């Protein structure tokens, strides 16, 4: 099912949670809504589900305007971070719930419900646990019950709100892989909310980066990581270093002296962004210069925290130093990023 979010605006009281957000989701896509808390990603998900209604704008399911449809009519599968399982029902009854509450004209016969529920429980690898109660399951198992329950109604779209947020790191990784395979097998249009960029980049076909109620960028993991379109995306996704620079006719000037870097950005005070690993050390020629404040060892490299202000107000950045380079706390380092962006 294609989903079109068309200039959605949502206000809670006077507080605007979403400003004119538009997004087209293709049928079968796996989309991540990524952003810090308060960015509006969960609000957007709830609007698609029909748990909230927009202040302005439209939400289309295919050609049908669903903006004012009730949550029951929308037929969406929703999975909450804390599962929201019905604790007084067994795994089987939880999964069967969506089919059993249907009106008599659309409710499948008992045997059919049983067959479908068992099939779903099998699909989420919980066969044999039909009779257990949620309290008797682990976190990862509960989340899979929640997913099976959402799938039981044959939803037009699957919406997951921080689906792995309450799980520990190991289970999270396993379940992430499992969800990707699950999605590839079932082909449901899926939206999930996360604040974990690794999760978003690894899992999604396209990532929607949100901040302060706006969409900052939509793109594949490569687009988001390698070609960030804004300062926010650059600093939110992946490690980044940032220094204040001045642009004069395409030249990047740092503290009054040219760096030899060229840009298409317009004249004025800007910031240069780069990844800590995207630098070359320079022994001569124009470069950024700074003193090493501290160093820490990662697996294959060292991370040096550098004060590029050199006494005139601290400008701290972190860069990656190859292991062979002689450097210690207090030594001067000259470097240039070979990939960067100016915002």
């Amino acid at each position, binding site marked *: 099912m294609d989903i079109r979010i068309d200039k959605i605006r949502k206000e809670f009281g006077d507080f605007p949670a979403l400003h004119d957000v538009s997004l087209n989701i293709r049928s079968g896509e796996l989309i991540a809504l990524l952003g810090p808390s308060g960015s509006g990603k969960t609000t957007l998900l709830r609007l698609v589900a029909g748990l909230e209604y927009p202040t302005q704008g439209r939400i289309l399911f295919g050609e049908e305007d669903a903006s004012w449809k009730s949550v029951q009519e929308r037929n969406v599968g929703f999975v909450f971070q*804390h599962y929201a399982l019905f*604790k007084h029902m067994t795994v089987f009854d939880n999964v069967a719930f969506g089919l059993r509450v249907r009106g008599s004209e659309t409710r499948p016969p008992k045997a059919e419900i049983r067959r479908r529920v068992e099939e779903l429980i099998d699909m989420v690898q919980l066969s044999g646990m039909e009779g257990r109660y949620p309290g008797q399951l682990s976190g990862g198992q509960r989340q899979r019950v929640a997913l099976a329950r959402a799938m039981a109604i044959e939803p037009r779209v699957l919406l997951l709100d921080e689906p792995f947020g309450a799980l520990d790191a190991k289970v999270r990784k396993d379940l992430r892989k499992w969800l990707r395979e699950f999605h590839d097998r079932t082909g449901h249009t899926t939206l999930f909310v996360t604040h974990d960029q690794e999760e978003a980049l690894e899992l999604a076909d396209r990532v929607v980066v949100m901040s302060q109620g706006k969409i900052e960028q939509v793109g594949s993991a490569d687009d988001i990581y390698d070609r960030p379109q804004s300062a926010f995306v650059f600093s939110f996704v992946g490690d980044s270093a940032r220094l204040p620079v001045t642009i004069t006719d395409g030249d990047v000037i740092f503290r009054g002296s040219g760096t030899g870097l060229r840009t298409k950005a317009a004249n004025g005070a800007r910031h240069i962004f780069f990844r800590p690993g995207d630098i070359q050390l320079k022994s001569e020629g124009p470069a950024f210069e700074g003193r090493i404040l501290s160093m820490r060892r990662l697996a294959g490299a060292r991370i040096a925290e550098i004060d590029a202000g050199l006494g005139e107000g601290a400008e701290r950045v972190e860069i990656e130093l190859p292991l062979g380079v002689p450097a210690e706390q207090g030594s001067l380092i000259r470097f240039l990023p070979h990939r960067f962006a100016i915002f």
Partner: protein
Amino acid sequence: MALGLSLTMLTLIVLIPLAALALRAAALGPAGLYELVLDPRVFAALKISFLTALAAALANAVFGTLTAWVLVRYDFYGRRIFDALIDLPFAMPTAVAGIALTAVYSPKGLIGQYLAPLGIQVAYTPLGIIVALIAVGFPFVVRTVQPVLEEINRETEEVSATLGANRFQTIFFVVLPPLIPAILTGFALALARGVGEYGSVIFIAGNLPFKSEIAPLLIVIKLEEFNYAGATAIAAVMLAISFLMLFVINGIQSWSQKRFGHG
């Protein structure tokens, strides 16, 4: 240590007095006891006491649950004051509640004057007893259901809606079942309280034998006649019936705990 202490307390305060009561009543002998219970006036009083308590506890189960829901889910001006008011029947001398209710519900009272033309008489009838028992038993269900309701996540209801359940189905299949053990506890407490209630009832009941005379009042009457054996016998019968009822409720409760209480 804690076990020993609580057992000692239970023995001193509950078991020994009750045993003394049973012993006293036994002095009448089985035939005497039988005769006493079958005495039409005693029988009528027992019936009134238990039926009105049952009706009041049922009403409290419904309205107490509703009130707990409102207190947990709605945010309105004065909610905290409303919340504090719930406990008032616990704090007030029950006689005060009885006198106040009588004043309000008597045929010339604030509310009674509008009910009288409709042919509804509250004061001096079993209906009045029920009203008084609802008032004194009201906090029980509210206070037992409220904490359980607070634990129930709103997300559970939202998920139910996304699965296609209408509001009615969500309330009856999702929200209410986990509350049943707590509602039963509150119901049992309100019932027990209602059976033994004296102070608030005697003012509003009118105490007409065979019509609105409750068993505890009959005990007092017997005491005033220095008929100690008769008084203890009625008490013993009430005790036996109450015990049986609480036993049954407890059974239902532990069943419902198993059935609905998984959390």
